[in-house]
């Protein structure tokens, strides 16, 4: 119990003192996971909308694959991204392994099926006649897609939360493709693993508390937006 309390006190001290190393790690965590979420939103919402709105042979298989991808183990993603970015791998010439960019790529791969799956579900849950009603109002195809995305914005916001929550808290892929290099690719989760390994439980708890705090703040802000969206 003392250990936990000590950790919380240490976290509070690190936060209020703006500890440069902790702040750097936290900022990098936000940057990497924020960018990865953004990337996954662009890819996941567009492809998810396409899958939801079109009919093609094997659609059920595609949706099942996407749903399976929603629970993709980060270490498996880390392994395959590492293989692709490895010096002799297909994308080795980009020299991205052990860089924040590699972490963004790996986290995007983790978050994209989550966003895509939630997008497909959200689009398919819209009323059956809504597409017809929008077209009957004189919409072009582009206007139709935009209006449907707007209609599904609340469940899509849940997709943003789930995607961001999934990547900021993952450790396997980040450690494999980022390497936990101090001051360069060290993020809150990889630092927590390292400090736990070293037996520095107070710092590990402090980093975990900061991680939880970030998750809460981001989700709280998104919830506020979600709630404000609905007219009274």
């Amino acid at each position, binding site marked *: 119990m003392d250990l936990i309390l000590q950790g919380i006190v240490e976290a509070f001290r690190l936060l209020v003192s703006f500890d440069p190393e902790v702040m750097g790690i936290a900022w990098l965590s936000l940057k990497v996971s924020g960018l990865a979420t953004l990337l996954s939103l662009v890819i996941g919402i567009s492809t998810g909308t396409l899958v939801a709105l079109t009919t093609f042979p094997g659609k059920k298989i595609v949706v099942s694959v996407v749903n399976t991808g929603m629970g993709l183990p980060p270490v498996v993603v880390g392994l395959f991204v590492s293989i692709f970015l490895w010096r002799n791998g297909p994308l080795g010439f980009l020299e991205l392994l052990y860089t924040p960019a590699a972490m963004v790529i790996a986290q995007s791969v983790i978050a994209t099926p989550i966003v895509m799956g939630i997008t497909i579900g959200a689009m398919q849950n819209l*009323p059956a*006649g*809504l597409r*017809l*009603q929008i*077209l*009957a*109002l*004189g*919409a*072009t195809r582009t*206007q139709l897609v935009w*209006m449907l995305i*707007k*209609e599904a914005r*609340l469940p899509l916001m849940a997709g943003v939360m789930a995607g961001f929550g999934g990547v900021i808290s993952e450790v396997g892929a980040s450690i494999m493709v980022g390497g936990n290099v101090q001051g360069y690719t060290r993020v809150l989760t990889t630092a927590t693993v390292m400090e736990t390994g070293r037996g520095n439980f107070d710092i590990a708890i402090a980093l975990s508390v900061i991680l939880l705090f970030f998750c809460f703040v981001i989700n709280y802000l998104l919830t506020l937006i979600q709630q404000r969206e*609905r*007219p*009274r």
Partner: protein
Amino acid sequence: MTQAVLDLKELRVYRGGVQVLDIPSFSLQENEFLSLIGPNGAGKSTLLLAIMGLVKRQSGSLHYRGEQVRSDARWLEIRRKMAMVLQEPLLFDTTVYDNVASGLRIRGFARSELRNRVMGYLERFNLADMAQRSARKLSGGEARRVSLARAFAVEPELIFFDEPFANLDPPTRQSLTEDMDRIIRENGIAAVLVTHDQSEALRMSNRIVVMNDGAIVQSGPPAEVMNRPVNEFVANFVGMETILEAVVLRNERQHVTLSVGGQEIDTVGEVAGEEVYCCIRPENVTVSVGTSNGQTSARNVYRARILDIASMGPFLKLRLDCGFVLTSYVTRESFAELALYEGKEVCASFKATSVHLIPKRASLVQAGI
């Protein structure tokens, strides 16, 4: 009614390899109010969607005000001259104001013009005080009102209603129908109403089109469709409760005598062929008690026995055996005054002019036999 707003030719639509629409010709005139009636699955909604270019057509051409619509871009332009109200209100998850504005935003209206137009239609539909309310928190009637305002706000030249007031209570339905009718007449636009309510179709339309199995079976003024159905299907559908297979005994000088179940029926008019369907609307059959020798101008008077009685809201439906089975409607007041009951002997009469004859071959032709 002079110029055709739209003219559709040789329209065929298939779904899953099955032909769901086969319309050789369909047109709508300026200021015309047309009602489409027919059983579920007759193709009424598909016809509206085909006119708007929202279903894939295997064949067919559309002329809008004389100009043939060829490209997808032109279809979109034409669609923007139309509006459609579907069975469900299908409002967007935003305010009432934004819902009414949606069609105008799609058309790229400038903000001030859009605001004036939207406020104008909110006023006309008595929605101004709920402009900022969430469309998701409206009652069924309010939601339908918003969907009407949204459709009318784009000021279409042509408007389609696909059973817009289904599942609403009668007072709400009546109020919305009155609003819809008023604004259609104020704006002077052509309209097509898909409805299952034949009294609504009768009351509002200049023309009724009856559809069945993806085809137009009959088209004409309401009185003609209701009283002079072209075949047995239409007769059944428009509520000709009595449809009898009859043989023509005499056919001379506009006076036709039929034989049905051992009885004779006098009618007027012309009919070709020996075998006909004899159609009589239940409201044209009078029931009385006592002898059949009373003074009446009705040519057809029979002794009858009441087979059964069914309640139909404000009136009762009697099935009478007079050698053939005849259906009659009587009000609850008449029912009580005449002390009617099942098995009672009564007198049933109807005029020769209230009988409509359909040559049997017309039905066979319509059925494609």
